[in-house]
């Protein structure tokens, strides 16, 4: 051993002192990613808000001081108004989203699996797609009044289109060779749908779901601001009437949290459901 170390020390030292001479080019790409880089911009904005409010550059009537907003949020939570509004809005969004996803998926399956279904369903939906859902609100109010059904259905109408479009596209892009394989294996139609069609359309469906979540929140905001007697939107509208920017900001933060949470949930589902693809990417 000792003799070996004696022998080895020479090359080791040579390695430590080894020169590193190589040509280098100026880097043109963006370079190494920064840790928590996504949060830096948000932190800078918050800091600007704090500094602006503290120095008086920001008029409290334009935008309330951050500490007042925190205080207001505390008060709203204490008297239960925030939770109540959040639950009301959450249920609305969830019902509309659920209904829209269900309808969109079923229509996509019917249209994707049978030519007759496609002839009846695809055309009307393409027409519906070109009408912004929010433009239908006046008609929906006449038909359904201004109660909860109108709100849920407006959200569902905004949701089912992206679900339908992407799921249908996912179905149609399943390769014909898999259908051929299923035929040679003698599987039933039910098994074919369960093992080939649904998993094959899953990536399209999940993409549609991410768009759908965004659409549902947009529709939620609109129906709540237009005419509501409860919910985050109602809270914001009321605060707007009384010039309470602190409550408006709290409401906006809650909307943002709703959106971020929903997107995170969809991404989680995506990771679980598409694990066969994720391993490919990693």
């Amino acid at each position, binding site marked *: 051993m000792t003799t070996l170390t004696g022998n080895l020390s020479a090359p080791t030292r040579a390695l430590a002192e080894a020169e590193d001479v190589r040509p280098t080019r100026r880097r043109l790409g963006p370079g190494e990613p920064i840790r928590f880089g996504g949060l830096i911009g948000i932190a800078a904005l918050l800091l600007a808000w704090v500094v602006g409010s503290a120095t008086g550059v920001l008029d409290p009537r334009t935008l309330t001081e951050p500490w007042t907003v925190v205080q207001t949020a505390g008060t709203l939570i204490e008297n239960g108004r925030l939770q109540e509004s959040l639950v009301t809005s959450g249920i609305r969004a969830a019902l509309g989203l659920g209904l829209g996803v269900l309808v969109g998926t079923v229509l996509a399956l019917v249209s994707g699996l049978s030519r007759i279904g496609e002839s009846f369903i695809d055309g009307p939906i393409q027409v519906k797609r070109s009408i912004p859902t929010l433009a239908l609100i006046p008609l929906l109010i006449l038909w359904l009044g201004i109660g909860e059904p109108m709100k849920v259905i407006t959200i569902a109408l905004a949701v089912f289109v992206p679900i339908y479009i992407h799921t249908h596209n996912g179905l149609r892009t399943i390769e014909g060779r*898999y259908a051929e394989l*299923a035929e*040679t294996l003698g*599987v039933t139609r039910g098994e074919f749908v369960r*093992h080939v069609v649904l998993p094959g359309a*899953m990536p399209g469906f999940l993409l549609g779901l991410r768009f759908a979540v965004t659409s549902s929140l947009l529709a939620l905001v609109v129906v709540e601001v237009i005419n509501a007697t409860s919910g985050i939107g109602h809270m914001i509208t009321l605060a707007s009437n009384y010039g309470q920017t602190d409550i408006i900001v709290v409401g906006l933060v809650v909307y943002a949290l709703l959106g971020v949470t929903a997107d995170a949930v969809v991404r989680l589902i995506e990771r679980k459901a598409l694990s*066969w693809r994720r*391993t*490919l990417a990693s």
Partner: protein
Amino acid sequence: MASYAGELSTEVAPAVRVRSLHRSFNEAGGVLNGLDLDIAPGEFVALLGRSGSGKSTLLRSLAGLDRGVAGTGVIEVPEKVSVVFQDSRLLPWKRVLDNVTLGLRAGDAADRGRQALAEVGLAGREKAWPHELSGGEQQRASLARSLVRDPELLLADEPFGALDALTRIRMHTLLRKLCEVHQPAVLLVTHDVDEAIVLADRVIVLDGGVVRHDARVELDGRRSQADPAFARLRARLLTELGVEDDHDAPGRHLDRAVERAAS
């Protein structure tokens, strides 16, 4: 050759019986033009032919996959037919074992699937995703998927066409072994004359939509390319396929020159 086919049909009822099969994709002309073919139970038939000779059309018609293609004729195939495609055609969203047992309605499907995977040398890879397997392993899995159904007829459409040469040799050995155990009748479509001779009991050359050449491979034991009988059969099949094999024995150029002078 005709006498050979007749002799066979008197011995046992064939597994596959095809009579005057016509198939055409357009008005211009048929791809199959009155093809007759018998395959005995347990017989390994290799189907050679140039591109467009109708090999794949025949295989697809036997597999029942030529819906909508115009044609006439009689096809009798066994009840249990399995198809091995050129691509392994594993569903990317199912793990290997689930791919193998897809559509299998036996109570012990998973056990049989595991056994089939072990047979093709994929024991322990049951939980892998298809893309985690190499090309050769994927094709092994697709062989397992076919064999787990105990087919009486195995239809293989250039199953090793996309594999590298070394993997291909390994797959030949595996396929021969599996066929000895399971004894299905096999119809193997291939471009590769050597592959056909190494694997098959009988080699058929298709041309113009009919059987042009039907040769029994009479080579005993290990089929070696060094065997002169192998080389003779190879040369004959290549001639039937209309290919001149230039990189062979040096004397052949001379022969051909003489032939050309004579003609």
